[in-house]
């Protein structure tokens, strides 16, 4: 890069932004469509029944999500317990 280019290139590099956005969305969508293992629904169902032994929760209060980051996979479990208000009723 030449001396004057240094000053000229102060405008933001939109291709870099595009690339970053695409990498995120594509990784996310691949996880969902392309390589999502088929045991996830069953896993979710069993988790739900285990948690229900102790805490009454709805079906949509268990969220199971598999993410791929580079070489490793992250299994994200999110179980929302009912807040105290609803328990007291």
């Amino acid at each position, binding site marked *: 890069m030449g001396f004057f280019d240094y000053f000229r290139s102060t405008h933001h*590099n*939109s*291709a870099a932004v*595009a*690339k970053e956005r*695409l990498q995120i969305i*594509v990784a996310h*969508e*691949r996880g969902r469509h*392309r390589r999502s293992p088929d045991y996830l629904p069953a896993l979710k169902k069993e988790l739900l029944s285990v948690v229900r032994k102790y805490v009454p929760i709805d079906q949509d209060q268990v969220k199971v999500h598999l993410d791929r980051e580079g070489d490793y996979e992250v299994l994200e479990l999110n179980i929302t317990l009912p807040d105290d208000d609803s328990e007291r009723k």
Partner: protein
Amino acid sequence: MARIIVVTSGKGGVGKTTTSASFATGLAQRGHKTVVIDFDVGLRNLDLIMGCERRVVYDFVNVINGEANLNQTLIRDKRVDNLYVLPASQTRDKDAITREGVERVLTELKQSFDYIVCDSPAGIERGALMALYFADEALVVTNPEVSSVRDSDRILGILASKSRRAEQGDEPVKEHLVLSRYAPERASRGDMLSVDDVMEILGIPLLGVIPESQSVLQSSNSGVPVVLEEDSDAGKAYGDLVARFLGEDLPHRFLTVEKKGFLKRLFGK
């Protein structure tokens, strides 16, 4: 054994039909008997790009329904030997092409052709799924632009799960990236995704880069596949692409900004 190649992209307007026309023409120019099929039922356009729109008598749906045979329907190209066009129907009935019907036609074509090029419609609906279902290889046409790259990735997912090869557990469909409407000067300025960016995101081998070129519109205006415009950059790029597909090891051209010499600057061109 005939090879079936789908030209697909997900997104519309990225150059599928332009690529289908030039790819098929290039294969035929090199002596391979080639047929190019328009799968865009209801929105027939390949005939215009190939310059044979006034010679259409029967179409793909007529053949599927047994109303005409392939000999009556295939349009022989007048410029290049070994090249035939199977035009799409203009019917508005989206269910006009069936998987069984397509399979029957492809099986018959396989007996006399070396290459069968399937020009897919945009989207991921029935027509697009039909076009890719029987494919052995796929040219994924992508523009260096966010929505096109994302859609190409979706199509790669569909090729890997919904094609016959995927369903039967055969060797997967061989994927090739065709990056079209590329503007090297904009990429070098950081205003456009570069070839490397797109390759990194999609992760499939690059078959060819087609530079943004006025000759693409000019050749479609006159119904001549741009690969036949041998003086134009896009024509040369398609020629290289076909040679690479057939196994030649050619370097990619038109990836960097052309440095204009003093005389060129003075006299233009």
